[in-house]
């Protein structure tokens, strides 16, 4: 394979490789899948900037010998890297394989982040944190002076980086140096590997100047602690550094989910609390409707066929009314309540092409894989309590690697006879995705079930199913039907601007979510994590007009929705204009929003001086130059 252009060497990043790094990079490979190990190692090295753009790799024969692999295996690896656009190979005397750095856009990273489940992200974060903190603790006793110099250099590069990817490379180099300062080859190798697992995403968490400056400050704290040989502080700082990055990724993940598809419901100005409340009541209402529809048929001694038909008709009708994130629903009959069928489940899955009957549960007690649901909580409890309830999250009995919630409503005959439950299954991942716009904009929040186990959260510190112990500083709301509780970290009640009360700012947020619901391109206002700050900045910016805002808010109904705002815009046009200007002003201050519509922000844009020459050389001015007699003789 040949390429016409070999990339230009970027000398700023092309530093001589130190002996340990060289050993690490090109040292013998132990892996059995030699070729893919080479790919991983070189890809990480390119991602870290260890191999600069335009750098020529050693000759194949030398490299293969150095790595202790066959030329054949090396060639296979290089071919893979070429396909991935990370190498170009040029023939001829000055040819060879040259490193190509992928362009600094973060689309791949975003896609990867979006594909991670929240437990996966948490798991990676834990692992990353462990590596960094352990390396820091060891380095506190082992680091040399030259390590310190290098560490400071990279911390500084994080600070001075102009883009996320640039900062991420410096971050990677910092940690590689930290591991090497810990004098542990194993740690260094693990550091190297972790780049491909999570570190390459950290560019997303270092996008803004502030993020980079804050992160660089923590890295400096790590180095300070190393100099003091203070392993406790070093460990803590390294840990908090990684925790912050992972937290930003988690936040961004929710934002990406929130902006990925239109979330019309996010437009109504609701909070996380009110949305969970509305989900609970919608589920209870829909399930209760199914239960009361089928109860007479189960009560009236119908034949199995009649019963089945009745249940099918009802359920299929009602399925539409379930929230979109409900993927399966049906009836689970009390054991022995249905003629000829001691165990009976009628179940539908929602699919793109409509409901599909799902018969995967084995109802034959003789079979080994018989689904014996009699004592499962989702039916055993309603049997006793006769009230709706929520069960889970648990890992799906079908063996799918998914957390599932089951919501039930009892089917009761006229005399209070228990005939079973109407029932819906929800994948926790679907619920999380549904709630993403609210999660993204809420303070640290945990939705937990009656047993104190976590269902969804916008924090990465706990995973699904983890037990949450009661914590101070959290505001708690209970949803009694399901026994669910929503814990929200109580934010300081400091007002972001002294021009409006917290209450008034909240009202503006509600207006913003209605007026700017987002579409496929721009995110919903309610999903912007900084919306409250942006609104406060907008209010401050309009200065004296805040009086009009205040008057307008006083005249607005509580929880303004679309129709109410439309009405308000005609009854209070002046107030509406200034209020809508404030919320639109706030929304379009957001870099995320401006990016979504391709509007540049915060940039000096000096122009190429000779551009005007190119423009005029097109001859565009010729017709004007041909004009004569325009200047009137003026005695």
């Amino acid at each position, binding site marked *: 394979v040949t390429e016409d252009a070999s990339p230009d060497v970027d000398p700023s990043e092309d530093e001589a490789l130190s002996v340990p790094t060289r050993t690490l990079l090109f040292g013998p490979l132990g892996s059995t899948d030699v070729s893919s190990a080479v790919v991983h190692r070189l890809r990480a090295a390119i991602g870290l900037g260890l191999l600069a753009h335009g750098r020529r790799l050693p000759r194949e024969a030398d490299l293969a010998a150095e790595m202790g692999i066959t030329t054949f295996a090396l060639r296979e690896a290089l071919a893979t890297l070429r396909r991935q656009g990370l190498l170009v190979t040029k023939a001829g005397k000055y040819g060879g394989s040259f490193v190509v750095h992928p362009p600094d856009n973060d689309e791949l990273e975003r896609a990867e982040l979006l594909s991670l489940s929240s437990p996966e992200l948490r798991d990676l974060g834990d692992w990353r944190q462990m590596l960094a903190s352990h390396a820091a603790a060891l380095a506190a006793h082992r680091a040399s002076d030259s390590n310190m110099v290098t560490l400071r250099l990279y911390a500084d590069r994080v600070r001075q980086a102009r883009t996320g990817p640039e900062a991420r490379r410096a971050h990677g180099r910092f940690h590689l140096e930290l591991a090497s300062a810990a004098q542990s080859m194993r740690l260094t190798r693990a550091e190297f590997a972790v780049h491909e697992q999570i570190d390459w995403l950290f560019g997303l968490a270092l996008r803004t100047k502030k993020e980079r400056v804050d992160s660089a400050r923590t890295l400096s704290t790590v180095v300070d602690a190393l100099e003091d040989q203070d392993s406790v502080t070093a460990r803590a700082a390294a840990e908090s550094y990684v925790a912050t990055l992972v937290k930003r990724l988690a936040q961004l993940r929710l934002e990406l989910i929130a902006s990925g598809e239109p979330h019309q419901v996010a437009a109504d100005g609701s909070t996380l609390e009110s949305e969970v409340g509305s989900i609970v009541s919608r589920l209870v209402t829909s399930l209760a409707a199914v239960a009361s529809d089928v109860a007479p048929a189960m009560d009236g001694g119908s034949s199995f066929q009649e019963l089945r038909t009745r249940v099918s008709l009802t359920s299929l009708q009602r399925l539409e009314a379930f929230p979109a994130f409900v993927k399966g629903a049906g009836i689970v009959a009390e054991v022995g309540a249905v003629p000829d069928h001691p165990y009976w489940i009628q179940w539908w899955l929602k699919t793109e092409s409509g409901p599909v009957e799902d018969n995967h549960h084995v109802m034959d007690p003789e079979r080994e894989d018989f689904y014996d649901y009699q004592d499962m909580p989702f039916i055993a409890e309603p049997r006793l309590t006769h009230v709706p309830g929520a069960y889970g999250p648990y890992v799906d009995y079908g063996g799918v690697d998914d957390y599932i919630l089951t919501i039930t409503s009892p089917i009761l005959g006229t005399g209070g006879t228990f005939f079973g439950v109407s029932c819906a299954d929800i994948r926790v991942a679907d619920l999380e995705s549904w709630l993403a716009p609210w999660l993204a904009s809420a303070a640290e929040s945990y939705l937990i079930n009656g047993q104190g186990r976590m269902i969804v959260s916008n924090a990465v510190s706990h995973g699904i199913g983890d037990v949450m112990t009661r914590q101070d500083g959290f505001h708690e709301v209970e949803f009694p039907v399901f026994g669910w509780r929503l814990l929200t970290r109580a934010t300081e009640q400091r007002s972001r601007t002294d021009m409006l009360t917290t209450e008034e700012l909240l009202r503006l947020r509600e207006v913003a979510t209605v007026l700017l619901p987002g579409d496929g391109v721009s995110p919903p206002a309610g999903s912007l994590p900084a919306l409250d700050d942006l609104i406060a900045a907008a209010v*401050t*910016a309009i200065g004296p007009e805040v009086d009009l805002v205040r008057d307008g808010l006083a005249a607005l109904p509580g929880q303004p929705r679309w129709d109410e705002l439309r009405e308000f815009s005609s009854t209070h046009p002046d107030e509406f204009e200034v209020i809508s200007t404030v919320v*639109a002003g706030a929304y379009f201050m957001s870099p995320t929003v401006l990016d979504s519509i391709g509007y540049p922000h915060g940039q000096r*844009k000096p122009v190429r001086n000779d551009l005007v020459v190119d423009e005029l050389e097109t001859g*565009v001015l010729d017709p*004007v130059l041909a004009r004569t007699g325009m200047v009137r003789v*003026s005695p």
Partner: protein
Amino acid sequence: VSGGSVDQVVDVLIVGAGPSGSVVAHTLASRGFSVLCLEQADWVDPGDLPGSKPEFELLTRTAWHWEPNVRRRPEDYPLETSEAEAPLSMFGAVGGSSVVFGAHWMRLLPSDFRVRTLDGVAEDWPIGYDDLAPYYDRVDAFIGVSGLGGDPAYPPQDFPMPPHPLGPGGLKMAATMNRLGWHWWPGTQAIPSSSFKNMGQCVRWGVCERGCPAGAKASFDLAYWPHSSAAGTRLVTNARVARITLGSNGHADGAVWLDRDGAEHRVRANAVVLAANGVGTPRLLLMSGDQPNGLANSSGLVGKNLMIHPNRGVIGVYEDDLESWNGPAGQLIYSLEFYETDESRGFARGSKWNLMPIPGVLSALDLYRDLPFEQRWGASAHRLSRGAGRLLCWYSNIDDLPEETNQVTLDPELTDSSGLPAPHIRYRISENTRRSLDFSEQRMTEAHLAAGAVHLALDPLVPSGHLLGTARMGHDPATSVVDPFGRSHDIPNLFIVDGSVMVTGGAMNPTSTITAFALRAAEHLADTAPTMTTMV
């Protein structure tokens, strides 16, 4: 800088640190005169300018609004405008309104000085284009103007720096103008296309009219003041002149001014130069001397013949990305196609057009204010927001001819923060001006449609900072306030050097002409100082 003491005497007292005041200060201080300049406002800290801030568009609606009545800063004086049919803009600062001007740097045409002779309207100036031409050149060279020489609508002229690029919007419209057979020319602007003296290269924030956050515009706090100060001018800020005082010989002998705390100060001067422009200067003259006529007003013309260049804009939204977030704004191109009188149009004189990019997302949304709620908000708002970056506006300055009934007087009730009477503005849009506005609107609309605009919005009357004509110059003391060098006919050591002296306004952005005149007046003052009895 602290206030002056009672007994200080300077050669020249200048009132106002805007463009004309700073030019006079530099000129006279360089010639060895002791010069004191009193400015009612203060320096604008470039860090306070709104243009580079995320909340930029909101700030321009209040704290950085063009109209002082909306801004409500103590250093501006309010305007009584209930009898003004068009809005005025004004900005108190060292550098004056040039801090927020668009820096369109346009000379008048020769015909502008001879409208009576050529078109039978208003009055001719006592000076002509050729009198000002060398001063135009010298100010251009001093402040670093970027532009392209050779415009066939002008006598030969050239500029120290190359023009700015037209950009995709300018090119699109230029090609359209060619198709229509209409004149256009790359914008001339007092905005450095390369760094110049203490000014940086334009970095295209696109917010020139809100103050350049990059220090890359020849606002006069940057372009002249550092040099004026270096030459020895003493500038006192937050110094609001209450009245010009006369000596026993009937000559001006200084001023009384108030500091921000209301304390009164007295300064004595051998000559006084007023540089407070078309509203501030007549206001000060009317506040001074004997009431009700004020000072230097034997002609009765002080405050009369106010011209403001009523300005209409037609904004086009385009489908293609015109990068309208890129400055300078500034003018991408200008057109003088409709500048001169054409009797068939039903009005005299004409208009100067400039094409400007419009930055900001709220600006895009604003164009649809007339739509019903459903079409402005929800998904519609997101769709409309994508008009940002695709906006071009044609603005036309109208050559409004002088009328004595368009007038600045003192309001009997409204006062500024020092308790001094606010100016009362009477301005009626004349039939001639109205026809010219409507004609321009139609032609600008045609230009947009020919260029492929998909939506048009009208800005019927843009606030105008071109405040002219209220102390006109002339040879005859009965029909003018000052002589052709800005010297008061009544008080020989009192000069007026700002836009007040203009006999007619032309239709060009006037700062180029005002500063050229100020330079000429200052040199005349210096040259004739030995003959002035008050000069020691």
